[in-house]
């Protein structure tokens, strides 16, 4: 019996030593909305992360070391997010991933900055990167960079002079609404109706009646996926025929599935879409579909990209150095030609905001069709 234990110990020591010789795994920590109101966001993000890590590890890891990630659930609650991020930081991860909700990012980013750990997150609120935090990085466009493109399109292409805005009253919707209202003012576009709705709202009949009464030249819809689909159905039912414009969510895969015919004709700006006319993105979509049996939304892409951001930055540094990570990612351009996992060329500025190409998409016959590619700025 005793010899058995001894043998076991010996084996454990030997294998541990072997693992050490190859380099211990690089620890990453993810805190995301795995349950609660943001569960779709968080689970897509998590699956994207897992997919990327699996790929990288089967190819030998980063600088010969495997990646390892822990997932923690924030329950879509900022208070819980703070606890989980605290826990993650106590274990000294290489990089912190998440959360996806802007409120949860706001409450956790000071902690990561204090610990000197880079945080790659999914939040899109404009203000997140404007407080001078040197450790925070986006994976997608912030509203301050996507909304001007939407407003420009509505002005130049749709030639709308008055627009109804429908938004969901949470930090995502309110943030977008505030930015686009300012942009409309710059183009002298009148806000014909300013309609706030609730997350999880089922009936949009009254809201659509208000839009009808305002008779705008176009409608800008900024809701979460499920509500976007309900809204589109109601707009069709009350036969509103003016152009419908959105940003990312309105023309998402899930909306098309839920709204069916009613989604046809909806347009939107999308920073990341699985329907982008880019071969690498299409390949990603196939891999994701094969592993998880569903088509991811942009959050799946964001999680995936976050991991490849870590890989590219670490390989550029030539070492695993948590303290130097943020400095090295600032100002970095990652080319898809040299790092296919990044899918599209991307540049990170000093604030942690990104520059990448974007797309203007329209739903035709239940399919996302890219109408215009908005090139990368630099």
């Amino acid at each position, binding site marked *: 019996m005793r010899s058995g234990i001894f043998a076991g110990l010996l084996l454990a020591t030997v294998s541990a030593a072997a693992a050490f010789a190859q380099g211990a795994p690089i620890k990453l920590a993810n805190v995301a909305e795995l349950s609660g109101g943001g569960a779709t966001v968080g689970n897509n993000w998590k699956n994207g992360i897992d997919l990327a890590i699996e790929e990288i590890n089967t190819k030998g890891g980063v600088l010969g070391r495997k990646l390892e990630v822990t997932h923690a*659930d924030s329950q879509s609650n*900022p*208070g819980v997010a703070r*606890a989980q991020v*605290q*826990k993650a930081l*106590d274990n000294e991860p290489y990089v912190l991933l998440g959360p996806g909700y802007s409120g949860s990012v706001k*409450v956790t980013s*000071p902690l990561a900055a204090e610990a000197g750990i880079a945080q790659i997150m999914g939040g899109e609120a404009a203000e997140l990167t404007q407080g001078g935090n040197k450790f925070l990085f986006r994976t997608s466009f912030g509203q301050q960079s996507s909304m001007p493109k939407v407003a420009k399109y509505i002005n130049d292409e749709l030639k709308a002079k008055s627009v109804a805005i429908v938004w969901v009253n949470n930090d995502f919707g*309110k943030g977008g609404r505030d930015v686009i209202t300012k942009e409309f003012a710059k183009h002298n576009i009148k806000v014909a109706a300013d309609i706030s709705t609730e997350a999880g709202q089922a009936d949009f009949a009254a809201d659509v009646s208000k839009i009808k009464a305002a008779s705008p030249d176009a409608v800008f819809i900024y809701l979460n996926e499920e509500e976007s689909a309900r809204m589109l159905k109601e707009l069709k039912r009350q036969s509103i025929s003016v152009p419908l414009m959105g940003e990312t969510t309105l023309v998402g895969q899930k909306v098309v599935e839920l709204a069916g015919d009613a989604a046809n004709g909806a347009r939107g700006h999308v920073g990341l879409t699985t329907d982008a006319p880019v071969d690498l993105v299409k390949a990603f979509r196939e891999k994701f579909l094969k592993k998880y049996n569903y088509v991811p939304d942009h959050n799946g892409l964001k999680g995936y990209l976050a991991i490849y951001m870590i890989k590219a930055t670490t390989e550029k540094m030539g070492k695993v150095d948590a303290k130097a990570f943020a400095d090295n990612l600032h100002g970095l351009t990652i080319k898809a030609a040299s790092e296919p996992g990044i899918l599209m060329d991307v540049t990170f500025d000093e604030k942690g905001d990104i520059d990448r190409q974007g797309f203007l998409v329209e739903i035709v016959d239940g399919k996302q069709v890219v109408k215009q590619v908005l090139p990368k700025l630099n």
Partner: protein
Amino acid sequence: MTATGKYLRIALGIAVIAALIIVPMNFNRYGLYILSQWAVMTIAAMGLNLTLGYAGQVSLAQGAFVGIGAYAAAIMTTQGGMPLIAALGVAIVLCFAIGWILGYPALRVQHHYLAFVTLAFSTLAFLVFRNEDWLTKGIYGISNIPRPNVMGFATNRPLPFYYFCLGSLALVSLAMWWLIRSPWGRAFVALRENPVRALSLGIDTRRYTLMAFAIGSALGGVAGTLYAPLTQYIDPVPFNLSLSLDLLMMVIVGGSGFFFGPFLGAMIAVLLPEWLRFTQGYYLMLYAVAVMLLLIYSPTGILGILDRYLAERRTKAASALRAVAKSRLETAP
């Protein structure tokens, strides 16, 4: 109760308090955060325990009072630059007054009807937090809430802040202990057990109902003023109905109407999901199942089990004594 029993209790109490002070010294920041959260939620649950457990009034608005306290603290310390103690005063007065007013429906409706009235208030409070941007910054929330200096000590670090929360919990517990043993406490219980009889004994049931609501709500406000500097960021979402339901669950699971009920209930609601996190995606399900099983086994909560056990032992002891007395009587010449 025997003298040894009493000493045993005191010894146990001292041991628990000592453990709460000494053990967390080695905790990491996460552990301290969770324990601070436990202390804050216990205070809120104690308030609800007074309203529900002692005075028998169902309230689904306790989360809203935590929110009112949190917003009072956040607004006054960030925008006004005032000390937290001032915010505490405002929160207590505000929650007491609102709680008093909210108590009026309780004079007319009971049980689930009262629950609906308080539920409506809870929703109203959430809408005010969210829609009154000029005051609460709406959905963007208020960030960078400072932690207070207590008698010259900064509580920015997690450990001092935990002691600050623990100290507040101790003060609230002492006040509660005194309140329950005062004539007021007995009046609250009388109100719960038999309002008609209480009235006929000369208890002003109207005043005591309002009082139970107001004091319970004020404690919610106290918890809120601690919650804001704990998370250092607040937005309206955490103060929606689910917090009220959570607090209600803490009181019921711990043992409604027992002094230590909220302590245990908050421990289960805050710590159990954290312990179950190793099960990954299943932890919330397991937590729900555990709570359901507990309530099936003992509808009066954890302390209900203890109470039942003690009552049984007392009955057994009493019947043993009776048997002895009886046999003595029979054998007596």
